[in-house]
Every structure is written in C-alpha cells, then in structure tokens.
C-alpha cells in the first residue's frame, strides 16, 4: 500500500491552511487601506489610524464573542440592546454610588464590576432560554433585544442617562488616554482578541464549540456537554458586550435608546466577513478582528471624500462588503471548492 500513512498523512500542515484562510480578509483589508490612502493620504495619518482602531474596538470586542456563539451554531441578536442596557444600568448604579459616597475610583470600579455581572447574567439568560427552554436562538435573542432596548428607554424615561460629571472625569481616561501611544480601548481590544484566539484555537472549549456547530450529535456522543458549552458561548458573548460597554461609557458618558442600535448586525457581519461560517462549525477569531477593522475602515473612508452623495453611503458600504467577501472567498476558491464536496 502506498499509503504515506501516519506521520505525513497526519500532518494537516496547519501553517499553510491558516495562511490561505487568514489571507482572504486580510487582502480585502489591504485593498481597502490602499483605497483609503489614495482618496486621502491623511487616511494613514497617525490620528486617523488611532481613531479607526479605537472605534473598531467596540464592534470588534463584541464580534469576538459572537464568533463563539456562531461557531457553536447559535446567533445573538441582542448584543446591541444589551450594550445599551448594560451602559444604562451601569450609569444609574454609578450615579447612585456617587450620590451615596461621592465620586472616586472605587465608584467607577464598582460600576465596572456591575457591568461585568450584568453581561454574564444577560448572556446566561440567552443561553438558558436557548438550551434549556429549547427556543430557537434567533427568537430568544430577538426577544431579549426588544426587552433590553425597552428597558433602557424606560429607565431613561425616553431620554438620556448621563454619568454624573465627577465620576465621568475619573472614568474618562479609560477611553481617551493611551499607553505607549496606543489608546486603552485598543489595548482592551488586543487583549480580548488574544484571549479569544487562544480560547478558540488552543483550548478544549474552542474545539467543543466547533464540534457542536459542526454536528451536535457527534458532539454529544463525544462526551461534550453540549448545553453547557452553548450556554458558555452566550455568557462569553455577554462578557464581551460588557467589556465593550465598559470602554464605551467613558466615551460619550451616556446611554439612551439610540445606543448600540444595529451593533448586532455589524458584529455578525464582522464575524462572517472574517470567514466564520454562519451555519457554525468553523470559527476564526483572527478573521473577526479583521472583519471589524474592515467595517470601521469603510465607515471612515466614506468620511474621507465627498465624491459620492451622502444618501449613497449605505450603497457604497454594501458594495464594499460584498466585494470584500467576494475577493476573500475568491482567493481560496480552489481550496473551498474541494472542501465543499
């Protein structure tokens, strides 16, 4: 038998495959950068690059969580509303704390702590309803999406919840200050991205997510606690939303019914642009990061030039997204075609 069998056969030549697949979104991003630079050289100015990175942190962090949910075959539509809700409650709590004991670092840390707890709780609710009550993730999270959005409107009485000025001053640097010339939000983003990447590619949890998304039966027969892992993906998503909120609140110091509208769509789009499959079973945190950068860069590029009518922003955005994904898929079409068999 000419079987090259064991040693080579078993070598899935990780490097090679990774390269091709990361290359897709990366190429799209590079083309976009070239486009941006050619429209306006200031696109690559330090200030602008920093802006893009900082901005993409919100969607990026949320999208890292979404990568897990989607990889495990789920979906979470509630993230945008959840962000608004967590931001709102966090502000209420901090304002209350300021009233009770004055503004201090402790107040802010207390708010951050509450935010994390809320995120975990909200994620758990989505996970629980999906796995235990056996309701489709789409419906569960559509429901919680409405609920959180309503609650924040209710808490704000139709208006805006604003962080008390003195707490704001203490909290403000979390968004606006830098370390080694890189703003804190970007650090958080980098941190979340690395943790996410490790979790997905170097831990049993990530492997389980892929297995569940790929074939839930096989996962169950392979001694994977399917419900538990799925619930964890939603909790992780909640945690990511909470982290994004923690760096969002100091930016604008407020929350309202308009906070985080359509973030869910952006987050899911970042995930899919990054090469994760909507049907689950295949998750790529690295791609998600690039996807988030692509989306942010598109928005930024639209502000660089006046060539096209503002009314057409959405159209340009749409065309670029589709083209980016097409390029990306095209670049490893050959590989995919075979894979599709």
């Amino acid at each position: 038998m000419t079987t090259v069998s064991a040693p080579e056969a078993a070598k899935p030549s990780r490097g090679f495959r990774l390269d091709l697949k990361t290359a897709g979104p990366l190429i799209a991003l590079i083309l976009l950068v070239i486009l941006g630079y050619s429209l306006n050289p200031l696109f690559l100015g330090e200030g602008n690059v920093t802006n893009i990175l900082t901005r993409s942190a919100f969607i990026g962090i949320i999208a890292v969580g979404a990568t897990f949910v989607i990889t495990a075959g789920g979906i979470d539509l509630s993230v945008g509303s959840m962000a608004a809700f967590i931001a709102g409650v966090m502000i209420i709590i901090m304002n209350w704390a300021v009233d009770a004991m004055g503004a201090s670092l402790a107040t802010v840390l207390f708010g951050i702590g509450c935010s994390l707890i809320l995120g975990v709780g909200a994620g758990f609710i989505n996970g629980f309803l999906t796995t235990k009550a056996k309701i489709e993730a789409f419906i569960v999270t559509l429901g919680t999406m409405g609920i959180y959005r309503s609650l924040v409107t209710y808490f704000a009485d139709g208006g805006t919840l604003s962080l008390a000025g003195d707490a704001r001053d203490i909290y403000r640097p979390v968004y606006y200050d830098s370390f080694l010339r890189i703003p804190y939000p970007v650090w958080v983003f980098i941190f979340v991205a690395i943790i996410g990447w490790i979790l997905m590619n170097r831990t049993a949890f990530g492997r389980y997510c892929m297995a569940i998304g790929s074939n839930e039966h096989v996962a169950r027969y392979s001694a994977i606690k399917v419900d538990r892992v799925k619930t964890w993906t939603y909790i992780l998503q909640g945690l990511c939303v909470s982290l994004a909120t923690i760096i969002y609140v100091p930016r604008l110091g407020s929350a309202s019914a308009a906070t985080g509208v359509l973030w869910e769509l952006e987050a899911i789009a970042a995930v899919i642009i990054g090469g994760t499959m909507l049907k689950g079973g295949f998750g790529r945190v690295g791609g998600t990061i690039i996807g988030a950068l692509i989306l942010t860069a598109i928005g930024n590029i639209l502000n660089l030039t006046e060539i096209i009518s503002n009314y057409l922003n959405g159209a340009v955005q749409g065309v670029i997204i589709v083209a980016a994904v097409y390029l990306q898929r095209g670049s490893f079409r050959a590989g995919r075609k075979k894979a599709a068999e």
Partner: protein
Amino acid sequence: QDEKITIGVSIPAATHGFMGGLNWHAAEAEKRLEAANPNIDLVIVTADGPEDQASDLEDLVSVQQIDALVVLPFESEPLTEPVRAVKDTGAFITVVDRGLTDPTIQDVYVSGNNTEMGVNSAEYMKTRLKEGDNIVILRGIPTVLDTERFDAFMGAIEGTGINVLDDEFANWNRDDGFEVMQDFLSRFPDIDGVWAQDDDITLGVVEAIKQAGRESEMFVVGGAGMKEIIKGVMDGDALVPVDVLYPPAQIATAMDVTVAHFTSNGPVTGSYILGSPLITQENAEAYYFPDSPF
C-alpha cells in the same frame, strides 16, 4: 483670504422625512455656499446614531482638518464631549437644533424650538377644543427631543379639561402613524383632535381617518412643515387646518452663519432661535417650498 477653509457639517442621516428635508437643505446650502465662496469647502457627513456621529467628528478633525464645525447632535448629552474635543482643536463651533449640555462650547447656536413647538400645538388645540373634548397623541421615537415636545404639550394643556385618551409611539413613520391611528379609531368612538407632532405621522393619520370615514369628527395637528401638508393648509384642508413649523432649513441658516464668520469682518456669535410659529391658511404661502423633497 485665499487660504482654504474647511467647514465640517455633521448631521443625522436621512432616515425619516424631517431629517430628509434637513439633509436636502444642507446639500443645497453646500452647493450655494461653495459656489459663492471658492475658498470654502463644506464637508457634510451623516450619522446613524450618537456613537457614529462621535466618530464622524473625529474624522472631520483627523482627516478633513476642519476649521469650523456645524453640528446637529443626535442627542445632546452624548455629543457634548466629542464636540468639545473638536472645539479644543481650535475650530469654530455652530450647534444646531439640539443644544449641548455645556453651551459654552458653542460659538453660535441655531435652533428650532421643541418646547415652543409643543406649546404652540397645544395652544392651537385649546382654541379649537373645550373642556371634555378628547384627543389622542402620536409620538415619535423615544428620544430627548420627542420627550421635550411631549412634556411641553402636556404642560400647556394641563387644566383645560381636554382629555388625552392615550399616546403611542409612531416612530416618525407614516406606516406606523397609519396603524396606530387605525387602532385609536377602533378603540375610541369619540375623538375630537389628534396631535401627530410630525408631518410624516400626520400623513398616515389622515389616511386612517379617511378610511374610517370620520374626517368630520376631528382635526389633526402635525409639525415640521412638510410641503404636502403646507399645501393642504394653503388650500384650506379642514382635516389638517394648521401646521407647526419646525424648520428643516435651520441647517442652512447655521451654515450661512458659519460661513459668514469667515467671510464677513465682524465676529459672529450668539443664538439664532427660529421660532415654531403656527402655520395657518393665511401665512402658509411663506413656508411652502415645492422643490424641497420634504
């Protein structure tokens, strides 16, 4: 004077009629002002939400390097700090419509008046209705300015004995206006007046009333100054006898003033509050712009 001057204009995207009108007026003003002042470049950017607008402001600074900013904040509080950041770069700031929480940031303030709009609507209601009459209210989207209008209106009719049967959100949207009004009509046999607060909603409301054949029972008060509605007022429509102006053209005023800051010699500062007058058949002509999309 030949130095190139860039003025950023940051406004919400044209997601509903009023904002559409505002976008149109901004675009028209841009063309007009750029033609008249070759050294001035106006850059209009539109945002889908507060955080998006904050990003737009950053971009105007970092890539467009603006000398002045005309901004209609999505929401007051969240955008106060981002506008302050623009101010800190030395730019001239004109705030439109929704005031920032810290008015010292702005050099010029141009605005409609949400409170006045609510009050004027209520005042008109009072002239037409008496104690015991019933009205329903269709609100916009739950946001600060909607709340401002609503609170002002409620304050002004307090004590008149006019009953507010119910209020519901119609999202500044015709379809929602139509459906909400349909439901009000099937719920309340006796309605004497409708405050629709926005002309998009008004259009839906009117259709619902016509469908129910109850045109003669009530009248509708909208707001903003949509051309179709103004036309109706001009023609003496009994169902929508008046409108309350909330001018989308205020953005053009703000742009004019800002450009004037660079072209005229004297300093330009202060507040330009455009009133929300009641538009009646008598004065409607003056508010009718048939070319505007709104």
